[in-house]
């Protein structure tokens, strides 16, 4: 374990989070989680730009732009709206959540709970990008690399490479710390969501602990340190406060940034980005009876800025894999069902994976309907892939669904807590919310 690696991860994260908060604040967002995601998305756009113009990454090129953004934004942009601060006195649920975060992160730092995929592709890509000082498309495009997901979006290996560049070497514990950071952001997102939902003290404490304990258990027992699934789970939770309140200017941006972060993180994040945008656009349309071009821009621009260059690069280098999709085969239904039943019994989940069955019930609850729609669409998309991908279906389900479920279960658990606390919203609040003037 190298202190330089740990300091590099933490230092890079805090720089990006603080600079990102300035930018998201200018868009009217008070969310600190959204600010951090803005910084991470901006980092991804920066290195994508450097790769596009053929400039090799260096410490200065990675550090100076966010520092400049921070300085210029502090000088010329309005201060971000005051976000909720961490409570000065931690409750019992906060304590349990911090314990879970500490257990998961400390074990992750030993690399003992590292996901096998860190060895098979995430870590190799990060190390390779560090040595190449950029995303090494020639390496990804080698004909034998079809099995290591060369078409996946690269934010995680980019963060690994940047961390190694700052630390001077590729240190595994520094890479693993990123998962701890994403877990911490996920818990902060849960707190922001429950605050937005107006939850009382018991439900706030129970909600954050209810997400933290199973997430740490699965992350430890199912070996998920260094896995990008944390980022997808974080993206869904980061969008939740905006999806719980009436559509507004800040919410457009927050959902857009969450979608961009998802699209930059993993290939499942690309459809998720689409679902987040579609659901929020539908809410906008329902609230305003028209589509405000500014709202569309705030919502669509961030994921488009991430997704279009990714698609262009993947097409240009021939990275998209034929195994991603094929013809729909309904005859696989029995095979998929039996494999899913096996996955629902994965010991490390301790039964919490059954939360994937809750979205149909949550759809009935107006307050959390938008969130339920997003996670339902994502789960349906996962199922669609099982019906279409031209690979060994049973192996595919068994080897992936426990992780895919992890991408949505935290959001489902938080939505369930909100729905449990507010079981019967008054009729006057049809649509799930009290109407407020829509800004922007």
């Amino acid at each position, binding site marked *: 374990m190298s202190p330089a690696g740990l300091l590099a991860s933490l230092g890079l994260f805090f720089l990006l989070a603080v600079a990102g908060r300035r930018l998201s604040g200018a868009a009217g967002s008070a969310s600190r989680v959204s600010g951090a995601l803005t910084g991470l998305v901006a980092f991804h756009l920066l290195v994508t730009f450097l790769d596009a113009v053929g400039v090799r990454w260096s410490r200065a090129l990675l550090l100076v732009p966010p520092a400049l953004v921070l300085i210029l934004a502090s000088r010329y942009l309005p201060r971000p709206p005051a976000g909720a601060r961490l409570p000065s006195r931690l409750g019992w649920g906060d304590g*349990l959540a911090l314990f*879970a975060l500490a*257990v998961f992160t400390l*074990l992750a730092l*030993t*690399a*003992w*709970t*590292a996901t*096998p995929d860190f*060895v*098979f*592709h995430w*870590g*190799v890509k990060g*190390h*390779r990008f*560090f*040595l190449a000082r950029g995303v090494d498309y020639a*390496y990804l495009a*080698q*004909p*034998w690399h079809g*099995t*290591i997901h060369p078409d996946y979006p690269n934010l995680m290996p980019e963060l690994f490479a940047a961390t190694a560049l700052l630390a001077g070497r*590729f240190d*595994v514990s520094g890479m693993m710390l990123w998962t701890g950071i994403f877990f911490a952001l996920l818990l902060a997102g849960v707190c922001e969501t429950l605050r937005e939902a107006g939850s009382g003290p*018991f*439900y706030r404490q*129970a909600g954050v*602990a*209810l997400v933290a*304990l*199973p997430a*740490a*258990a*699965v992350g*430890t*027992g199912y*070996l998920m340190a260094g896995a990008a699934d944390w980022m997808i789970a974080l993206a869904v939770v980061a969008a939740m406060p905006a999806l719980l309140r009436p559509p507004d200017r800040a919410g457009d941006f927050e959902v857009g940034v969450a979608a961009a972060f998802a699209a930059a993180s993993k290939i499942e994040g690309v459809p998720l980005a689409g679902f987040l945008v579609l659901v929020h656009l539908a809410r906008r349309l329902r609230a305003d009876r028209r589509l405000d071009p500014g709202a569309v821009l705030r919502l669509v621009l961030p994921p488009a800025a991430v997704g279009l260059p990714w698609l262009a690069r993947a097409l240009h280098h021939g990275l998209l894999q034929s195994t991603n999709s094929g013809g729909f085969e309904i005859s696989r239904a029995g095979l998929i069902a039996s494999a899913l039943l096996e996955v629902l019994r994965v010991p*490390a989940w*301790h*039964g*919490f994976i059954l939360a994937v069955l809750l979205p149909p019930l949550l759809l009935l609850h107006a307050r959390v309907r938008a969130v339920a729609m997003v996670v339902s669409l994502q789960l349906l998309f996962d199922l669609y892939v099982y019906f279409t991908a031209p690979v060994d279906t049973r192996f595919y389900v068994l080897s992936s669904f426990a992780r895919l479920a992890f991408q949505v279960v935290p959001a489902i658990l938080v939505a369930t*807590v909100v729905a*449990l*606390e507010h*079981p019967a919203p008054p009729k006057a609040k049809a649509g799930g919310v009290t109407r407020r003037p829509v800004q922007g």
Partner: protein
Amino acid sequence: MRRLILGIALLWGGFGLLTEMSRALAEHDRRESWAVGRPEYWRLGTPEPARLERCIAEVAKVVPAGSTIAFASAGPDRSSRFFEWRWAAYLLPAYDVAPWEDLPPGWPAPYVVAWGGVRVRDPKLERVRISPECKVYRVRRP
């Protein structure tokens, strides 16, 4: 009732975390004698990858960084050989490591690493380094 449901879920979640934590700690304590044969279940810091790492250390002495290496292993089945190849690629980030058995026809991999006693017979190859478990070959120069 709702609070009771949440309370039970929290207790169960706490039990789950403690179970996984104690299992992980116990396994971590036994990591130096961790004996899982199949490479898909190898973990960082256990003897099997360390054995491969010793072989890889030989490679770096004779193969220039940036070269393409074909990696052959003695895994009993295709799945084992696939994951051993991925481990080799992880341990050799400065090289393009290709799987020996899936090398495209005519592909010029100037070096071959054979690990775990596998025999690579090809008249085009000459051995440049041998250790008990690790042989490095180079394509003969004309």
